[in-house]
């Protein structure tokens, strides 16, 4: 066994200067670009920017490691190498996100106008028209799904955390886990099958879409609420009990308010999870070009389905359909963003202060 070598002094090796990072990165980028450019010149190909970036980062990591190894020592060299690795992993993760947001915003901007938010697609075959019918449909169906899932979800979570013991609670937890993994198309088929029992084959209704979405949403609400209720300190429940407060009032007035911020965030996440669902809505809510405010009657358009059909069934003027599809996607993204902001405000206002 080797014992740890005791340094004779606390003085470490000399650090590399601060500018070494940008300087080295720049140098390796220039070298990488130069070699690629010369390669491109000899083979008459275009410069591959992706290759330039990859080689530059690899060269930078290697050069930094070696320089640091010889000047700063093994431990600091490792530290620098891992820092580069972690930062590049972060970059790799963030690039698709930025690219996606950028693409949707630029392509969606073309039809991001007043018409899009005030008109439906009734009697529109070429340019013009809007997605008001789909926006209304999405808001109504998602709103109804939320109305169904949130009470069921919160009450199930309260049961599991505050009351559930033994086999029944274990079974509920198991089925919630199973439901979390239900493919969305299965939820759509379930809602369709349910409505066929009552209304006969070929039924299309907005409320059916809401039920399909609530099948997907409820387990997410249960899980999120459960986690939030679990982290409410037991001491608060005991404090309330010791004041002679019955259990149900303790849950209603101490446990729920304490965890409200987290529950609100969880609900928003679950809404964001289902608002973009396409497949189940395609089956049970169907598609229409006309306005329909009534979720209990006839087909109802929704934004994801609108985007899908605009793209899948392009008319004579293809670009108009594609533009509308992108703007639909942008609108959906904005709705989710607004919901997220709302959730943040809610958790800011309701989270325990102090």
């Amino acid at each position: 066994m080797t014992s740890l070598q005791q340094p004779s002094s606390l003085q470490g090796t000399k650090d590399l200067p601060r500018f070494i990072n940008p300087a080295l990165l720049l140098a390796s980028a220039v070298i990488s670009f130069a070699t690629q450019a010369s390669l491109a010149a000899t083979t008459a190909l275009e410069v591959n920017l992706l290759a330039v970036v990859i080689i530059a980062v690899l060269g930078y990591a290697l050069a930094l490691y070696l320089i640091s190894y010889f000047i700063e020592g093994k431990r600091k060299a490792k530290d620098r190498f891992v820092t580069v690795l972690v930062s590049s992993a972060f970059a790799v993760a963030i690039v698709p996100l930025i690219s996606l947001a950028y693409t949707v915003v630029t392509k969606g901007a073309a039809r991001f106008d007043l018409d899009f938010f005030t008109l439906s697609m009734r009697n529109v075959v070429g340019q013009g028209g809007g997605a008001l019918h789909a926006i209304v449909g999405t808001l109504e169906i998602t709103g109804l799904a939320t109305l169904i899932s949130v009470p069921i979800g919160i009450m199930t979570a309260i049961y599991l955390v505050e009351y559930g013991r033994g086999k029944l609670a274990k079974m509920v937890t198991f089925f919630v886990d199973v439901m979390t993994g239900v493919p969305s198309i299965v939820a759509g088929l379930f809602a369709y099958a349910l409505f066929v029992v009552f209304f006969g084959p070929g039924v299309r209704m907005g409320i059916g879409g809401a039920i399909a979405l609530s099948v997907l949403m409820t387990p997410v609400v249960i899980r999120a609420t459960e986690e939030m209720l679990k982290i409410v300190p037991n001491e608060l429940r005991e404090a309330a009990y010791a004041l002679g407060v019955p259990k149900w009032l303790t849950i209603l007035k101490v446990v729920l308010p304490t965890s409200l911020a987290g529950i609100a965030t969880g609900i928003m996440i679950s809404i964001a999870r289902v608002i973009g669902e396409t497949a189940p809505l395609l089956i049970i809510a169907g598609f229409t070009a006309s306005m329909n405010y009534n979720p209990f009657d006839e087909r109802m358009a929704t934004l994801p389905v609108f985007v899908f059909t605009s793209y899948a069934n392009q008319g004579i003027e293809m670009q108009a359909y594609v533009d509308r599809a992108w703007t639909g996607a942008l609108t959906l993204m904005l709705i989710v963003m607004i919901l997220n902001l709302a959730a943040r405000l809610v958790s800011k206002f309701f989270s325990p202060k102090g």
Partner: protein
Amino acid sequence: MSKRIELLNLNVYYSSFLAVADVNMVIQPRAITAFIGPSGCGKSTLIRTLNRMHEVIPGARVEGQLLMDGEDVYGPGVDPVRVRRQVGMVFQRPNPFPTMSIRDNVLSGYKLNNSKMSKSEAEELTEKSLVGANLWNEVKDRLDKPGSGLSGGQQQRLCIARAIAVEPDVILMDEPTSALDPISTAAIEDLAVELKERFTVVIVTHNMQQASRISDMTAFFTIAGTGMPGKLIEYDRTDKIFSNPSEQQTEDYVSGRFG
């Protein structure tokens, strides 16, 4: 109001495990009774049986009798919620409700039970309880601020204010100062001495000086070993327990020769 508590052949179980065995004692009204003893000897378990708080833990149950002014707390048809309205409790760690202001924390016994009171009544009760908990002067200008913003000692006094606001007969304190500094501890101890004028006070403490400083009666508990039930060894006037105990075990413990 202040009530006398009698424990007759009291056994406390967690499922099948006997945690405290065969306790017989009488807790006097208008006095401070201290429970002392090594960790795990069942002091906290026993104090929680006095307001049926131990029932919160699944499987916990009690055998024997616990009489409060002659009324059996564990009798048939007794509602634990009503018991707890008469027997307030202060916990080891201060636990004010984080979502409530200082005022609402004091009034929480009423607010959480949905009982209505006029604004002037609420103001009066808030002031009375906070004065009773020696906290009024420190917080009177910030009653609408959250209770969790106070220091640990202030939070603990806020919890005491909350407990006395519902006018209980008995106040139980489960190591109320073990998370506090000496100055806050002194404040709580003074408060406990004041509270015994109006309430029956039972306090669990690890601090023997604390027990000898403030309590009138002291009960010494211990266990023979891990997995064995806790037992009441000796219960007597505090000065006797600390100067001239009848049991060798008590003497060993209070003189520091224990374990």
